[in-house]
């Protein structure tokens, strides 16, 4: 049976999960308590996986669950801050590095985690305020500098094989994975020690990361962008699946006279059942006009990828990119093209810079309207992507209005929060009077918008 102390601890944990944005219902909370009474609570891995199976119902929630689990159900039996010798003998970093190199070569993850814990105790300590100790992962990483071990490890793993080929790439990947394990273990240990010092609640606030589909495009870091890109394909597939379902359930088309008469023969010439032709799906053309200047690059590349992935849903997708002049980039997103190389080629080969490489919406719109007058027509959905920051140049509102009137639909996706529209050099508020402008700060909002845009 579970003890009340354990139960209230579990309730605290569940509350922390909810605060981190993981939806844990009452029934799931009850299930978690049942799990607590069923698994072997002394086995941490069992407890972790058991709780995860009832409260984590989407894989994107798992990293936050793991971080919080480590805070609320810390590993016991490790050295605690109070147990530590206040003046530990300064370890020899070279000896530690040699030990680390051996472990990384071995590939034994458990040993690596053990090493990380010891390294944090030995190297990560810093006196933040007198009498209080804090531990920092950067101190450990600086002292060990594991990245400088790569060359040595590579030599050992390759064992004399040729450089530059397949073997090296595979070995590099192996080392990268093991280093990631080491870093994660060090950070986990630092968090554990911080939680011991300040209580799990205080640490939880700083460790919980936003979910991938809610990461702000403009603030996304490199690793977020990589994670976001990985969500593109499933997102497009999900949207396409929803679209296909909508079409099937949609109303049927015109009466199929021939089939109706045919089937009426079975009922003596009385047409009891009518047959209809399948509704012909309306396949619009999509034209994407996209700011790819540095300030919004992450956002626009991501959106270009999504539109490329949705190509099958539109009869024709044309993509144009601009910085201060405009060029067609459709050719980089040919069917089956690789998305990463496509965006690399886009910035290398397309003719996007005319004057100084700062966004110039006015000029870009003019060039677009002049060089591709046939691109926007009555069947076209026009999609403009950008933050509307013109660097105080002419906004070209008249040209934009001309495009909007010619298109069937026109939308502007803006990665900036709505309150910032029109501040500084932003003319978003002016544009918003002529085109429907939509705030699109994260993948979730983008998915919602594309779902709305898709033809039914």
């Amino acid at each position: 049976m579970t003890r009340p102390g354990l139960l209230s601890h579990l309730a605290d944990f569940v509350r922390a999960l909810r605060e981190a944005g993981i939806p844990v219902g009452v029934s799931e909370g009850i299930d978690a308590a049942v799990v607590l009474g069923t698994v072997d609570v002394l086995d941490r891995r069992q407890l972790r996986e058991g709780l995860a199976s009832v409260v984590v119902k989407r894989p994107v929630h798992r990293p936050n669950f793991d971080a919080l689990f480590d805070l609320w159900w810390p590993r016991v039996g490790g050295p605690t801050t109070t147990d530590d010798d206040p003046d530990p003998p300064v370890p020899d970093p070279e000896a530690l590095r040699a030990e680390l190199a051996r472990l990384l070569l071995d590939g034994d993850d458990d040993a690596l985690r053990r090493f990380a814990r010891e390294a944090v105790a030995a190297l990560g300590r810093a006196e933040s305020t007198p009498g209080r100790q804090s531990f920092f992962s950067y101190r450990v990483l600086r002292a060990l500098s594991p990245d400088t071990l790569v060359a040595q490890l590579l030599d050992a793993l390759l064992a004399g094989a040729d450089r530059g080929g397949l073997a090296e790439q595979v070995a590099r990947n192996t080392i990268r994975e093991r280093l990631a394990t080491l870093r994660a273990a060090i950070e986990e240990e630092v968090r554990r020690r911080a939680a011991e010092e300040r209580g799990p609640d205080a640490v939880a606030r700083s460790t919980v990361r936003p979910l991938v589909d809610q990461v702000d495009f403009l603030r996304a870091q490199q690793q977020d962008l990589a994670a976001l890109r990985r969500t593109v394909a499933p997102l497009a597939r999900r949207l396409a699946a929803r679209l296909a379902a909508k079409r099937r359930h949609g109303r049927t088309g015109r009466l199929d006279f021939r089939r109706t008469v045919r089937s009426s023969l079975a009922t003596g010439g009385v047409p009891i059942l009518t047959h209809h032709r399948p509704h012909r799906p309306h396949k619009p053309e999509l034209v994407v006009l996209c700011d790819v200047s540095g300030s919004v690059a992450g956002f626009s590349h991501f959106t270009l990828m999504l539109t490329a992935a949705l190509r099958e849903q539109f009869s024709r997708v044309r993509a144009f990119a601009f910085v201060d002049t405009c060029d067609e980039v459709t050719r980089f997103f040919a069917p089956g093209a690789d998305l990463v190389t496509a965006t690399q080629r886009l910035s290398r080969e397309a003719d996007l810079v005319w004057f100084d490489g700062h966004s110039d919406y006015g000029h870009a719109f003019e060039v677009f309207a002049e060089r591709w007058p046939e691109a926007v027509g009555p069947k076209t959905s026009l999609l403009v992507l950008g933050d509307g920051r013109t660097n105080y140049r002419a906004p070209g509102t008249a040209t934009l209005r001309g495009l909007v009137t010619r298109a069937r639909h026109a939308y502007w996706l803006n990665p900036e929060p709505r309150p910032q529209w029109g501040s500084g050099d932003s003319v978003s508020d002016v544009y918003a009077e002529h085109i429907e402008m939509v705030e699109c700060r994260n993948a979730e909002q983008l998915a919602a918008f594309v779902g709305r845009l898709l033809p039914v």
Partner: protein
Amino acid sequence: MPQQSPQFASVSDVGKRLAAVGYLTDPAIATTVFLADRLGKPLLVEGPAGVGKTELAKAIAAATGSGLIRLQCYEGLDEARALYEWNYKKQLLRIQAGPDDTDWHSVHDDVFSEEFLLARPLLAAIRQQEPTLLLIDETDKADVEVEGLLLEVLSDFQVTIPELGTITAVRRPLVVLTSNATRELSEALKRRCLYLYLGYPSAEREREIVLSRVPDIGGALADQIVRTVRALRALELKKSPSIAETIDWAHTLLALGLDTLDEEALRSTLGVVLKHASDHVRAAGELRLN
């Protein structure tokens, strides 16, 4: 419902017995299967194609000696295919073949009896007396309406047939649902299930899987295959190779009599692991095959 004795004694028991039928678990799988058995809850397994979701269900059935009943979901799956259907032709025959003077009420009672009922997987699983494992495969392919149907069956393990009354499970079957996450399943369904995300395995586990599935392959080659597959997964590919592809690859190399995985071998067998032309180009570029 009668309390039934659980199939597994402990988490480590799950691991051992699944290993005995050729399925290597990790702590997450073993714990979740153990809980599904103990708590009598359905187990929802989600993950990319080819990581062994269906295999897991089959292995549990084999390890517990249960019969496997499989409901394969597809678009347009309906009650008549999932739950039950009246054998309409047989009913018609019975009415036509019966003596003329039978009164309607007895005929009515007769044609709506067990004899004329076609049990589809869900009903069959509920009526089973022996230990049973119900596998609902690719749940995400079915329409949303089917989920509503599953809710009733999976929470109470009973089915209401208007003409016969409510049929309650004699023995609660173990239920495993799988999904490729092409769409999000409804919250209500997820709440009733234990959730297990099956991703790509750790290097160590994958190596063991390859060795157990392709025993003739040497440890060194298995190691090489696993590390190369992991390097491929690190690239941003359209479809990353999963365990099924790793095993296929091991079989291929074995059949070709290759004992080391070098550039030449990789180039000629890349089609086994990567199934998109653009992925081939990308992998060849990144791994410097040219």
